[in-house]
């Protein structure tokens, strides 16, 4: 099946509106309210009306608000398309891809993809409460061991990379410093005070080899983006951002038999399919917003999506290859999940659209026509997802 013909509707759907709420530690409101605010803002940004919406796509682990509840609240009497995808960051870009499929097939005319979450005030990851260990899949086996938060899983994979390629904490630290530096110019970002590599190294251990500054934030907020067909997009206020390619599924995780070295980026298998959907390759990408729940996945994706050979990222980082100014591939131009906020990757889409429009102000990258935006690369759930966005 390797050469199966790809019929993704490349460039037939476009993101025409974006909206978000404030990113905070305590929104003080429900995820329902957050979603309605982000959606209203996105629809207004698109020059459309709530009444135009006929599709709603989201994802989450029962910690967002579902399309059927929203449709009722928004007065949508006949929803043409919905996705209520279970899981978190690993599936985040699948909703963008599925919206493109629906719009490309003419099933829906105006699909809003959104993510609302109170991940700090209501849903702290593995807080001190004692949850029942009745989680699905491998989590059932890890939870009783205290092997229960993503920081630990990613640190375990980071260690494997360190052992195989000699990667050091300083290399992870440079990624954390880079993301923070990018957040300084971002009024949406929760963390805007720069830190040095020394400060990174001195920050407390969470799950060694991860320091506190290897870990992303916990955020309350919502992001929504509006998808319509590319023809209609031409008549709307902003530069259309075409969904040029998308791929999801993919990934392998350590609980999948057959994947025997976690040092090898699980982004590899999905990257190949992604580029095929877009008719593009790594060289066509101007900038990338990688899923950076932790520092190491960012490094692993730079490898997996074909921008570096395994083990090359540390030297490239020292050469400034990923800097927003002067870098060959600016990454996480808004500060990423590490410093802007943890909206499960939907905030990456928001930033990519602003950049492609040329509306990113002091953060604007020089070349901004084609963006790669990714979901979590597959280490944890085994799922992964990614999209390529292109300015019309």
């Amino acid at each position, binding site marked *: 099946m390797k050469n199966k013909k790809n019929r993704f509707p490349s460039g037939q759907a476009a993101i025409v509106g974006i909206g978000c709420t404030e990113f905070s530690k305590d929104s003080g409101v429900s995820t329902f309210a957050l979603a309605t605010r982000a959606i209203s803002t996105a629809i207004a940004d698109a020059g459309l009306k709530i009444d135009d919406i006929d599709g709603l796509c989201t994802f989450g682990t029962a910690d967002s608000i579902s399309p059927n509840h929203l449709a009722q609240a928004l007065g949508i009497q006949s929803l043409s398309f919905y996705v209520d995808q279970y899981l978190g960051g690993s599936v985040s870009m699948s909703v963008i891809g599925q919206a493109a499929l629906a719009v490309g097939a003419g099933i829906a005319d105006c699909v809003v993809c959104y993510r609302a979450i109170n991940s700090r005030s209501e849903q702290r990851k593995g807080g001190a409460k004692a949850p029942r260990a009745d989680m699905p899949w491998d989590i059932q086996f890890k939870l009783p061991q205290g092997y229960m938060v993503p920081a630990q899983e990613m640190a*375990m994979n980071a260690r494997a990379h360190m052992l195989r390629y000699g990667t050091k904490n300083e290399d992870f630290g440079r990624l954390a410093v880079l993301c923070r530096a990018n957040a300084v110019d971002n009024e949406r970002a929760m963390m805007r005070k720069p830190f040095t590599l020394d400060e990174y190294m001195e920050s407390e251990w969470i799950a*060694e080899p991860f320091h506190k500054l290897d870990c992303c934030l916990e955020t309350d907020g919502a992001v929504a983006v509006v998808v319509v067909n590319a023809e209609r997009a031409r008549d709307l206020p902003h530069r259309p951002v075409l969904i040029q390619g998308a791929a999801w599924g993919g990934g392998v995780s*350590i*609980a999948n038999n057959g994947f025997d070295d976690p040092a090898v980026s699980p982004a590899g298998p999905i990257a190949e399919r992604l580029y095929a959907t877009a008719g593009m390759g790594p060289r066509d990408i101007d900038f990338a917003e990688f899923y950076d729940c932790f520092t190491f996945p960012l490094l692993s994706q730079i490898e997996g999506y074909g921008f570096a050979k395994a083990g090359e990222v540390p030297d490239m980082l020292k050469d400034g290859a990923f800097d927003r100014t002067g870098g060959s591939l600016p990454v996480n131009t808004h500060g990423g999940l590490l410093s802007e906020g943890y909206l499960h990757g939907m905030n990456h889409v928001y930033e990519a659209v602003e950049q492609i429009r040329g509306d990113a102000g002091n953060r604007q990258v020089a070349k901004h026509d084609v963006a790669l935006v990714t979901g979590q690369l597959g280490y944890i759930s085994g799922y992964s997802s990614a999209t390529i966005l292109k300015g019309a």
Partner: protein
Amino acid sequence: MSNRLIVPIADRDTTAYWQALANGKLATTHCRDCGNWTWPPRPICSGCHGADLSLDELAGTGEVFSWIVVHRSTSPDMMQYAPYVLAMVRIDEQRDIYIPGRLISDKEVHRGMRVHVQTEKITDAVGDLVWVAD
């Protein structure tokens, strides 16, 4: 029996697995047709897709492939051990199966460190495991 706040909840695929651990054995699904092991225990062989599986005891030995040191645990049961080592152990039977667990060792951890399993009875029906350095 140990007093724990977080107790594994067995489902229909895993009741026998947790029961085995309570009985002092680490066992997982093993294909009678092709000999492939699967962990976590599954209702189908991931190798040949056969359904004739038995829950067989593993040797309970392997080597450390990767590890982390948990300084900030979110588990009330594990806080007493922090900082503690969690290891991904590649079992001797099959190189693509890693079973994670807390590692007890007097020596510094390294890749390839030989370890063996130690089971722990939580209730009559549910047990758990830790890895112990040889």
